[in-house]
């Protein structure tokens, strides 16, 4: 009997812990709602949050950016741990970072982007022209540089006006209020465009003005500028050798009694054999190895043959002051061989020069 009573008491306590029955009338104020009502409340908040997020997405697509920001923030406040929360937060922050001018510049940029993506060329060109006119009046902020990059890329890649593209991309790179990544993109695009047009010195000047933004591009253009300078110098050396050869050949012909004798004296079989070996054997080795371009070596062999003929012709004409003239002749011919070697590589496969910093 006592055991039965104890058992009944334990059962009553357990039942009392699981069921909460109000002791007459309404619950006093300040007490927590029941589990069922709190579940209903959280479901309501989640559905409100989803609805606000969808409204925000709709507003953003339609260009009502201020409304979109408000809706994103309300959705996050209603349900901070929702699945869409990271997207909503990122979009709200992005819009707030582009809020200058009351979102009007951002609206202009978005409209132009849409027109470029979908409209025919006349409408796209009109949209780009309008944006190019308006962006100079945009307030300081990220949108101005992004709009300039959009206009620049449109003129370059879609509308075929690279000259105007350089100007506006330079404007974007020099816009101190722009996002650093946008400025860096504008700088590399502008320098790539200038390089494409052969304006290496202009590209170098632009990159040196903003060296901190894109040091990799600056190093690359410096290398190209060095290569261009060496190309000019090599062509000048070879052109000088041609002029010197013409005078020397006629001098040798006068000395030896005719052009045929001068020609026979200037072209030595051993030198011809060496030049052919220099270029031909190297080309064979490169082909055997299975990689690399043999053309630089073939052109090098021909270049060395030409320089050796010039050297031999000069030797036929020199008489007095042999040591000084010999030294000068050697220097000129060494310069000629180096010039021929550089041009033979640069004109055929310039990747060989990259390892030399050229």
């Amino acid at each position, binding site marked *: 009997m006592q055991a039965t009573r104890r058992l009944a008491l334990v059962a009553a306590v357990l039942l009392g812990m699981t069921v909460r029955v109000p002791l007459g009338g309404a619950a006093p104020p300040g007490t927590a709602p029941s589990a069922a009502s709190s579940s209903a409340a959280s479901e309501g908040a989640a559905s409100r949050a989803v609805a606000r997020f969808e409204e925000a997405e709709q507003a953003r697509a339609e260009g009502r950016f201020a409304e979109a920001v408000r809706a994103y923030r309300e959705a996050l406040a209603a349900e901070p741990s929702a699945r869409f929360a990271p997207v909503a937060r990122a979009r709200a922050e992005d819009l707030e970072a582009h809020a200058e001018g009351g979102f009007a510049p951002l609206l202009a940029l978005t409209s132009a982007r849409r027109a470029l993506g979908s409209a025919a060329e006349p409408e796209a060109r009109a949209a780009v022209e309008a944006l190019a006119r308006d962006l100079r009046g945009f307030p300081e902020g990220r949108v101005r540089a992004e709009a300039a990059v959009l206009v620049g890329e449109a003129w370059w890649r879609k509308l075929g006006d690279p000259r105007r593209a350089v100007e506006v991309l330079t404007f974007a790179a020099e816009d101190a209020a722009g996002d650093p990544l946008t400025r860096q993109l504008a700088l590399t695009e502008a320098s790539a465009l200038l390089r494409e047009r052969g304006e290496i010195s202009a590209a170098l000047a632009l990159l040196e003005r903003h060296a901190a933004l894109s040091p990799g591009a600056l190093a690359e253009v410096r290398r190209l500028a060095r290569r261009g300078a060496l190309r000019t110098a090599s062509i000048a050396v070879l052109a000088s050798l041609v002029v010197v050869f013409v005078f020397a050949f006629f001098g040798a012909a006068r000395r030896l009694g005719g052009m045929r004798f001068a020609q026979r004296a200037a072209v030595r079989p*051993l030198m011809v*054999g*060496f030049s052919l*070996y*220099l270029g031909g*054997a*190297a080309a064979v*080795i490169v082909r*055997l*190895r*299975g990689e690399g371009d043999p053309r630089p070596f073939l052109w090098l062999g021909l270049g060395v043959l030409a320089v050796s003929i010039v050297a031999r012709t000069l030797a036929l004409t020199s008489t007095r002051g042999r040591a000084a003239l010999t030294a000068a002749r050697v220097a000129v011919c060494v310069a000629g061989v180096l010039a021929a070697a550089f041009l033979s590589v640069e004109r055929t496969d310039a990747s060989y020069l990259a390892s030399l910093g050229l």
Partner: protein
Amino acid sequence: MRKLEQVALGLAGGSATAALAYAFLRVAERALLPEANPAILIGVERSAFAFRALSALYFGGFGAFGFAALALARPLVAARLLRAAVGLAAVALVAQAALAP
């Protein structure tokens, strides 16, 4: 000097130059581009040893032409230089085998 003697001097000089070139290339590769023992890799399709030997032969060709030209102009000088080149090539190969095998 006869043509045959000139060619022989050229070939001998080229051989000495090729040996010198191989020793130089092997030391330069060991210093700048460390790689595995060539005796193990000799059967590999793109053997570094095979390429090094080809390169040494190529530079040996330069020596052959140089010695042939010198033999035509100054045969005695060419002969003395050949003797020195052969000795130098032997020393270089021994040094390379000891220091950078």
